[in-house]
């Protein structure tokens, strides 16, 4: 069974600084996708960034980038130039076609950006 672990229940960062959120996963599959979702107080689940396991290049989306270490099964999210609007829960998620067609989520990290 696939599992996703986020070891940091809460984190905080000062506005304009950089923060990294950790995620590890466990799978025996070779082809899969990894995601970071953001959930602000509005509850909306917003896709932040996606990484295909077959791609060696780390995905980036503006201020968001990932450090994907396939051998270590690690998938961390780096937020640069943090903004107050980045305050939210962040969920790491995993998907593979080898099993049920579902996203497997970590328990989340609550990020607070302080002014």
């Amino acid at each position: 069974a696939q599992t996703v672990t986020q070891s940091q229940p809460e984190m905080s960062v000062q506005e304009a600084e950089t923060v990294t959120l950790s995620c590890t996963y466990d799978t025996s599959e070779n082809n899969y996708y990894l995601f970071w979702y953001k959930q602000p107080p509005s509850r909306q689940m917003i896709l932040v960034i996606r990484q295909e396991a077959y791609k060696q290049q780390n995905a980036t989306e503006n201020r968001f980038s990932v450090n994907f270490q396939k051998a270590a099964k690690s998938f961390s999210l780096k937020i640069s130039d943090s903004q107050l609007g980045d305050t939210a829960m962040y969920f790491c998620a995993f998907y593979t076609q080898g099993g049920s067609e579902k996203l497997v989520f970590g328990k989340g990290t609550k990020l607070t950006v302080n002014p």
Partner: protein
Amino acid sequence: DARVTQTPRHKVTEMGQEVTMRCQPILGHNTVFWYRQTMMQGLELLAYFRNRAPLDDSGMPKDRFSAEMPDATLATLKIQPSEPRDSAVYFCASATITWRTFFGQGTRLTVV
């Protein structure tokens, strides 16, 4: 913007009552998921459909929960009878392929 629409946004009900949550997936999306979010368990898949056919409902308590897609524009999740432990946020999500899944804003259910 295309979006997944869920109704109601909030629901407070008494234990034992029937609860129906509705979801309108994004037009053209053939896969619909129901997830439940609680503090203790996080996000869990309850059921999902492809082309309106149920494919996996193993995450759903069968005795009280039921999920249906009467047509391509409507998915429902029903709880009968509801219990306090069902209190959670229920998300509907839709996709054409799972790695492009879009979520609705959720229904916050409180059973008292």
